[in-house]
């Protein structure tokens, strides 16, 4: 039974497009899969460390071109076979010389590479070959290969003895720009390494046939006494090693290098600059060293000694192989004379001082002739070609001391010429030295010019000691000649000087002595000394460390007890000298040490070495005349103390008394203890004190002195200042005739006497807690203080000395009552409670005296003002009614505002 109304559609539903589309897609995918199916290849490696099958990719120029599918160990277990599926696009590139290598992260001291593989894991890198023969089996390289020779750019080779820190990938730098890299190296023989390098095409033109290459690896440190040199190409060259290059300026136009050119790789930049080789036969290579010894010409380096070898000739000499800078080629001539400059020492002179520091060097005098590169070293010629314009003169000298070629000629310590040659005069009696005065200075040399030797160190040894004298520091090493032309020089320098030969004095002194014109004007005086000490002829006389004259000679007095020194003061300083001047020996170093410190006293540096005499003016005096005689004191202090007065102080105990202790009056030092000796019977010490003349009147019969030393007791610290400054001797002037001998008190005087104010005496049964400086109060205001206390002459009472300060003196009347206000008074009863009574807080601690004056002081005769020395009774305690007294007393005007500060 079929439904008649249903009719089937005859046309095909458009939905059938879908499977057709799917089929097309599927078919296309299938086709693509078949077409792009990887090419299976096998690459053999030593090991397949960090290669993961299915993951590790083959990269070419940074893009993946294949994947490692499988890894198997090869048949004889010697390596591994990597089954790789390569991108089908590389079909044509897989030829027999296609290269494969594994890129792994590599970090070592010298190299960091494959950093990207740290993240991505290792991968294989490939480089297509150039062969046409397809291959499917390859052998992998152990490391990345060098660039193929076909790569555009410049492929060059280096010869070097040692590889240094160069390695594959080390950069080649030109002006610090990397222009290429080392591609590989091979050990050709035991002493030859061949390095392949590649220069990028854009820089290839920089490399010329004459370009020099040097190993710029790491840091080059070359040091010797003449300085040091630090070279580093770049930080990366420090790690990777590197090669530097430069093309000598003169050879910039040489043809460009070509592929396969060989270059020498020099050890360093200096090495690469080498020029012409020459040999020099030497008697001895003493002081010379390979690589560091230089060839110098007039202070310039023109070459280096590269090696020193032993000669096999019959004289067994030494040959120095020298490399001369190319620019200095002109020196290699037949007549050039070479010699070695070495330091020379002699008793009076040091020659070639600089060679002590820098080592010996080879120097030469250029000559003419044909080219020659083999020389024999000779001795230094005593002449020198004249290079500057000037006039030549000759000196006659007794010896050749302090002569050297090129030694300067000074005029007023300015170099105006140089010594050009010196030699023995015919006959050998003396030396003839030629010197050149530069053209613009020739007028300085007149017929009466005096020449003397300068420079070097003069050591004059004699009975009076050894004196070492050095001239200008520059001439210390080179020696030299100085001259002076007395009289006015003619402004007209055209007038020629006929005289050609001069005598050369050995020292300035000798020149002066022989030439009266040169002797300077001044005042001659005499100094009397007990001993010569380090003073000798030539010792300078200093005034405020300025040299104003010198000792010219000395002689002994007839009896032989004193020495009389002849001194000379220059004219311009003569006015400094007065009859009152005091001279002292300023030589050497004076060290005095004790507990209170160390004193080091020196004169000027020069006077330490050479000795010296100083003088000063203690007070004005008359101008001196010729041959005035002075005393030469042993030292400055002695000179200072020369007019001081000696006072002898007798101390019972030597404790605290020592040299240098001050004697002070009212805090101001009068003088110092000069020396301490034992008195008679060793019972006391006698201190000798030096005081100024002006203080003499302080030392009289009644003058009391005592030692003030720091005191730490339960009552407090006394004389705090003496802790720091040390003990000192205090002085209280008294009346009487002046004396020079005094006996010190064992202790400070118990009573202090104050001149101002009112000094009165209070009588008491007991001292209580009163002590020195305890206050005296009136209405609780401090009006005075206790100055001292003592037993009354019959010992029945205590006498308390008090001093009332000036404005308050009218308060004290004959009937004034005094009572002891020390401490606390406490009274107590059952009904009245406790009553505590104290004058002031201070008086609780320090003790004190209170006072009161009756109101009726005016009526009563007893109320008259008190006078100095009046006696009062000091009551134990005050009566109540005293406190109620309320007298009106006119105080004195305060003429001294801060008087109370003296309490």
């Amino acid at each position, binding site marked *: 039974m079929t439904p008649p*109304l249903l009719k089937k559609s005859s046309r*095909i539903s458009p*939905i059938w497009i879908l499977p057709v589309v*799917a089929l097309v*897609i*599927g078919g296309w995918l299938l086709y693509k899969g078949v077409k792009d199916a990887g090419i299976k290849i096998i690459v053999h490696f030593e090991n397949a460390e960090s290669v993961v099958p299915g993951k590790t990719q083959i990269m070419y120029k940074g893009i993946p071109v294949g994947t490692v599918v499988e890894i198997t160990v090869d048949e004889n277990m010697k390596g591994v076979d990597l089954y790789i599926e390569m991108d089908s696009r590389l079909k044509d590139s897989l030829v027999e010389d296609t290269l494969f290598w594994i890129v792994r992260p590599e970090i070592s001291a010298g190299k960091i590479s494959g950093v990207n593989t740290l993240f991505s894991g290792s991968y294989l890198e490939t480089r297509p070959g150039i062969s046409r023969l397809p291959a499917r089996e390859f052998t992998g390289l152990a490391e990345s290969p060098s660039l193929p020779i076909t790569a555009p750019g410049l492929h060059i080779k280096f010869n070097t003895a040692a590889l240094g820190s160069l390695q594959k990938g080390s950069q080649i730098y030109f002006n610090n720009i990397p222009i290429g890299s080392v591609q590989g190296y091979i050990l050709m023989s035991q002493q030859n390494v061949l390095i392949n390098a590649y220069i990028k095409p854009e820089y290839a033109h920089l490399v010329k046939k004459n370009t020099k290459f040097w190993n710029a690896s790491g840091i080059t440190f070359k040091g010797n006494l003449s300085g040091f040199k630090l070279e580093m190409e770049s930080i990366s060259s420090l790690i990777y090693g590197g090669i530097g290059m430069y093309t000598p300026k003169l050879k910039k136009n040489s043809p460009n290098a070509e592929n396969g050119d060989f270059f020498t790789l020099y050890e360093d930049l200096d090495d690469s600059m080498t020029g012409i080789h020459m040999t020099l036969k030497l008697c001895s290579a003493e002081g010379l060293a390979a690589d560091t010894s230089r060839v110098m010409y007039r202070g310039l380096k023109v070459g280096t000694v590269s090696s020193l070898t032993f000669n096999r000739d019959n004289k067994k000499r030494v040959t120095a192989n020298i490399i001369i800078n190319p620019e200095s080629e002109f020196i290699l001539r037949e007549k050039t004379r070479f010699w070695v400059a070495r330091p020379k020492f002699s008793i009076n002179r040091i020659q070639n001082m600089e060679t002590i520091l820098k080592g010996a060097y080879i120097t030469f005098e250029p000559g003419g002739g044909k080219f020659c590169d083999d020389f024999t070293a000779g001795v230094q010629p005593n002449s020198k070609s004249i290079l500057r314009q000037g006039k030549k003169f000759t000196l006659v000298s007794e010896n050749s001391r302090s002569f050297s070629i090129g030694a300067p000629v000074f005029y007023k310590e300015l170099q105006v010429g140089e010594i050009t040659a010196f030699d023995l005069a015919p006959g050998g009696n003396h030396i003839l030295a030629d010197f050149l005065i530069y053209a613009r200075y020739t007028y300085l040399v007149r017929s009466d010019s005096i020449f003397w030797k300068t420079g070097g160190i003069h050591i004059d040894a004699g009975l009076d000691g050894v004196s070492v004298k050095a001239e200008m520091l520059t001439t210390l090493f080179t020696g030299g000649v100085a001259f002076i032309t007395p009289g006015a020089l003619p402004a007209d320098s055209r007038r020629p000087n006929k005289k050609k030969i001069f005598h050369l004095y050995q020292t300035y002194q000798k020149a002066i002595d022989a030439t009266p014109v040169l002797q300077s004007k001044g005042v001659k005086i005499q100094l009397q000394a007990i001993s010569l000490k380090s003073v000798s002829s030539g010792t300078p006389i200093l005034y405020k460390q300025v040299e104003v004259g010198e000792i010219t000679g000395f002689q002994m007095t007839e009896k032989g007890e004193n020495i009389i020194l002849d001194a000379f003061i220059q004219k311009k300083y003569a006015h400094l000298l007065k009859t009152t001047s005091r001279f002292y020996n300023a030589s050497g170093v004076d060290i005095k040490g004790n507990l209170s410190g160390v004193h080091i006293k020196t004169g000027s540096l020069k006077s330490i070495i050479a000795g010296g005499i100083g003088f000063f003016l203690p007070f004005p005096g008359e101008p001196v005349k010729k041959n005035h005689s002075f005393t030469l004191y042993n030292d400055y202090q002695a000179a200072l103390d020369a007019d001081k007065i000696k006072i002898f102080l007798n101390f019972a105990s030597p404790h605290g008394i020592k040299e240098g202790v001050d004697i002070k009056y009212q805090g101001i030092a009068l003088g110092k203890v000069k020396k301490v000796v034992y008195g008679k019977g060793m019972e006391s010490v006698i201190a000798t004190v030096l005081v100024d003349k002006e203080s003499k009147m302080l030392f009289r019969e009644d003058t009391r002195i005592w030692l003030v030393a720091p005191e730490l007791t339960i009552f407090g610290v006394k004389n705090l200042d003496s802790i720091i400054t040390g003990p000192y001797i205090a002085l209280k002037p008294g009346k009487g005739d002046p004396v020079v001998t005094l006996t010190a008190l064992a202790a400070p005087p118990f009573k202090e006497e104050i001149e101002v104010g009112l000094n009165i005496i209070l009588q008491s049964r007991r001292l209580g807690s009163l002590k020195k400086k305890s206050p005296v109060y009136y209405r609780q205001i401090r009006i005075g203080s206790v100055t001292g206390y003592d037993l009354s002459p019959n010992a029945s009472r205590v006498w308390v000395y008090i001093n009332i300060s000036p404005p308050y003196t009218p308060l004290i009347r004959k009937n004034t009552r005094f009572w002891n206000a020390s401490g606390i008074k406490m009274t107590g009863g059952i009904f009245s409670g406790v009553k505590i009574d104290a004058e002031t807080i201070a008086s609780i601690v320090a003790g004190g005296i209170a006072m009161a004056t009756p109101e009726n002081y005016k009526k009563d005769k007893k109320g008259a003002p008190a006078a100095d020395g009046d006696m009062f009774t000091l009551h134990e305690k005050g009566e109540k009614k005293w406190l109620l007294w309320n007298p009106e007393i006119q105080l004195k005007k305060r003429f001294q505002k801060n008087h109370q500060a003296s309490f």
Partner: protein
Amino acid sequence: MNNYKKLNMEKNIEKNGVGYITGMKAGIVLCPGCHKVLIATEKNGMRIRLCPRCGASIHFRKPDSIGRTWALLITAAILVFPANLLPVMRVYSRNVPDDSTIMEGIIYFFKEGSYGIGIIIFTASILIPFFKITGISLILFSIHFKWKTRLKQKALMFRFIQFVGRWSMLDIFVITLLQAFIDFGILSSIAPAPAAAYFTGVVVVTMFAAITFDPRLMWDEY
């Protein structure tokens, strides 16, 4: 209709609980939009008519259902191959791409010990698409060859296919979510690979196949 046939039919009716007279036979058609019951007249009941109530087009059966379903099924069957053979996901780990097919992913999860996730992905990505294709094919074949057995189970299976179809997109969701979540630049990132598109095609096409198929066709031959 002979006796045997009739007997057989009655058996079937008893067994499957289906009425002998279908709506189509009775000239009654149901509006798919508003479920209005319409009487198909001689004049108009033959082909398409619009529902007088909601305007939906009315058919006794979905037009060309079997043909369209077949076409879609065949499309799905073709797409299944690239979907499962090509890599579905590309994981860039430290910039090194690592492709994996659906099955490789599942194996990976099993190897890692994540059996739960492995089973879920296996079910959603392998089992269900194959089940859908084979299930609908089976129903279509049974209609074509008039296999009358187990119609009730087949109907149940078809409803299950309809329900479960959308879950096959799970794998695609996972890939898109991973692409969004795992994007750590050079360290790690994830991108969909070509198979993802084919797989989506399989899922979509099978879903459409389930829609175009009219299950009532199964019963029409009784």
